[in-house]
């Protein structure tokens, strides 16, 4: 662009210099013509002055001749003034005469030559006049003839001066005509030159403007497009100047911006994913914390319940023992009545179970560590099922067992674990009053855990209740204590395991018990 500007402005300057030169040249010609005309005025004025001087000298001469004056100074001053003017007149056209080419082009050259010859003739006559007049003025003799000659010389000088004046006026007219013509021509040339300069300057300015404005406009359009987010837009690079460099740089910037935008989007997606993951993990942690809190709360409740249960169990044990003693007494005294005996036996069994419950309740509040021993979960499950085998509802329930024969032994409190299984199996049986399918499975899931799955096809548990079933004293069954599942969860938790429930209302419920193998290696037994 700088180069274009320099070239454009240089051309403009050149044009204006040419125009100015043409104008100055024509003005010079006009001024020179005017000066030459003015010189003629000066020459004519000088001729007039010389005529006055020679006529003044003539008058002094006549006065002297008549004897009226003896002061020659005035006369001498006239003559010397005339002589000086003639010298000046001889120099009026010296520049033209000394320069042949200048003289040849002078419009009144023939008059100049005549004028100069006349001046020289007048100078010679004046010298002769001075010579004679000096003698006439200073001699004590009368020189009438010489005076007559002197007067004749003055007449000739007057003629010469009149000729000079006439030639000056003639030359002035010639030069005026030439000057007027040159003024007209100069005006025409100046006007033409000015018009040409303006038109050419306009063309150059227009071209220069286009050369600069078009790329600039493209650049501005590109900037607007890219600013609005259209990074795919590329500015058309049509010049190699500074604007072209700017356009190329801008295109590269657009490419870089596009790349950066993509990276930004990618990072944003990753960030959103991380946010979701974080939210999920926070939810999990929150759930675990909630569960932990629930566990803590349940443990606290259980601690209270345990204390209460210990007291209740202690108080109930004595009356239960007394009742059981009397039942056993009744058995020995009522052996003959078989039907009564059967009822008594049934009461005794129930009392034993009540005693066992109280005993278990006591055991539940005790730490399982004291009775932990290597135990087979398949075996404990079978014992629990056997205990429930005689329940009437079991006649409508199909039991399906899928025990892992290679299931490793776990170091657990056998009775507590059995209580857990009975609780869960009892819940399953009660969930299927019209019959159904009870599935029991054990498996070694690896990663150091053993899982026990107990599922039924019962009525299921509502989602809102699934989180509450492990809370103490929470029950949906009329006559239930609400302690079974809470005690079970507490027992499993004390063994380092976890109990979970999945249930769909109307389809059934699955309890999953995970127990760690490391407990076998001495976790509870330590």
């Amino acid at each position, binding site marked *: 662009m700088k180069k274009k500007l320099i070239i454009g402005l240089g051309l403009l300057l050149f044009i204006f210099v040419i125009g100015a030169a043409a104008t100055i040249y024509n003005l010079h010609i006009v001024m020179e013509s005017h000066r030459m005309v003015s010189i003629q005025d000066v020459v004519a004025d000088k001729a007039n002055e010389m005529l006055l001087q020679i006529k003044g000298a003539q008058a002094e001469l006549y006065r002297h001749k008549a004897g009226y004056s003896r002061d020659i100074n005035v006369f*001498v001053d006239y003559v*010397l003034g005339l*002589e000086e003017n003639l010298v000046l007149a001889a120099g009026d056209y010296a520049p033209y005469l000394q320069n042949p080419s200048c003289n040849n082009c002078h419009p009144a050259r023939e008059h100049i030559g005549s004028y100069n010859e006349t001046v020289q003739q007048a100078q010679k006559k004046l010298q002769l006049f*001075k*010579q004679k*007049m*000096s003698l006439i003025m*200073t001699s004590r003799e009368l020189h009438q003839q010489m005076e007559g000659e002197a007067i004749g010389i003055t007449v000739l000088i007057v003629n010469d001066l009149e000729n000079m004046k006439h030639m000056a006026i003639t030359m002035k007219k010639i030069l005026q005509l030439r000057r007027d013509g040159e003024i007209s021509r100069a005006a025409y040339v100046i006007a033409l030159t000015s018009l040409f300069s303006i038109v050419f300057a306009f063309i150059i300015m227009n071209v220069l403007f286009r050369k600069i404005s078009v790329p600039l406009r493209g650049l501005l359009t590109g900037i607007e497009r890219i600013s609005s987010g259209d990074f795919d837009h590329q500015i058309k690079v049509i010049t190699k100047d500074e604007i072209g460099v700017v356009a190329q740089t801008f295109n590269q910037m657009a490419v870089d911006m596009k790349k950066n935008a993509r990276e930004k989007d990618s990072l944003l997606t990753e960030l959103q994913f991380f946010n979701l993951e974080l939210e999920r993990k926070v939810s999990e942690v929150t759930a675990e914390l909630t569960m932990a809190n629930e566990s803590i709360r349940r443990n606290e409740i259980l601690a209270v319940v345990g204390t209460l249960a210990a007291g209740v169990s202690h108080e109930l044990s004595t009356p239960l023992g007394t009742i059981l003693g009397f039942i056993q007494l009744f058995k020995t005294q009522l052996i003959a009545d078989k039907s009564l005996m059967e009822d008594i036996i049934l009461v005794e069994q129930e009392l034993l179970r009540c005693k066992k419950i109280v005993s278990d309740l006591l055991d539940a509040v005790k730490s399982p560590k004291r009775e932990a021993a290597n135990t087979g979960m398949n075996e404990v499950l079978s014992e629990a099922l056997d205990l429930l085998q005689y329940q009437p509802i079991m006649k409508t329930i199909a039991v399906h067992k899928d025990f892992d024969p290679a299931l490793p032994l776990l170091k657990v409190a056998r009775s507590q674990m059995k209580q857990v299984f009975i609780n869960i199996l009892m819940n399953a049986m009660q969930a299927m009053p019209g019959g159904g399918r009870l599935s029991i499975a054990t498996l070694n899931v690896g990663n150091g855990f053993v899982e026990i799955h107990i599922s039924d096809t019962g009525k299921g548990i509502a989602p809102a209740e699934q989180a509450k079933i492990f809370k103490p004293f929470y029950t949906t069954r009329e006559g239930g204590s609400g302690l079974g599942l809470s005690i079970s969860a507490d027992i499993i938790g004390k063994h380092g395991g976890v109990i979970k429930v999945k249930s769909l209302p109307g389809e059934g419920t699955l309890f999953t018990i995970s127990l760690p193998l490391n407990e076998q290696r001495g976790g509870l037994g330590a």
Partner: protein
Amino acid sequence: MITAPENLKIRSTLTIGIIPEENVFELKKKYLPLMKYLSYKLAMKVQVKLLDSYGAVDEAIARGEIDGVILGSAGVVKRYAKHRFDLIARPQYSGSDSFYKAFIIAEKDSGITPDINTWKGKKLALAHERTATSIFVKWYLKKRGINSEQQIFRKVEYAGSHDAVIILLLERNAAIGGVKDSVLKRFIEGHPACRGRFVILAESAPAPENTLVVSSRLPVDVKNLLKKTLLEIHDHPEGQVALKVLGADRFIATNYSEYAAVENMLHDLGSAASIRQDSPSQINK
């Protein structure tokens, strides 16, 4: 820059008369640059007044028209006692010793020789009867036993100036002329065609060139400054220009004793009765 003392500005004009020893037009042109120089130096208008004859000097002095005059040697000697003027300075012309001689000349082919017998019946032309040249002619004739020009010449014409004498000779209006050698020399330089046309019949002893004298009434400080300016004129560029036009190298001081030759001629002619030997000058020598 030419400057002058402040106390000189009270006098406005100083007029110097010039006797017409040669062409009055050339004479005035010669002296104009000198007057211009003196005007600057003296801070007053110093002008030339051409006198149409040697006799006009006395009238001009008497009427107070001039404050000084450039006089020839005879004029100095004759008027020294009468007017009691002061000698200031005279020019030393280029190639001369500031003295001139009076020549008696004739055209070479006129047949006139130094033998005065060849002069008889001829017309004699002189500048003026009061010039040293006229005195020399009279003295020369008297030394040869002729007491009056009329005894030997047919006619004597006083042409007014020395170059007018030469013109009369050239125009054959006179056969013998008395001229200053310096004027003849300058005339021949101005008219090369005249070179070799004249023969010198007799020449006088040297006399001082025309000298500027001023009225004794002129203030002493003006006279002193005028003399100082002229004697130092060759040291200043403007003064050198004036000297060149005058044809001189410098100005030198003039003493009355230098006029002994003219005085002796006048004495021999019996016209020196009024001449005084003592100098009345009050100005610096």
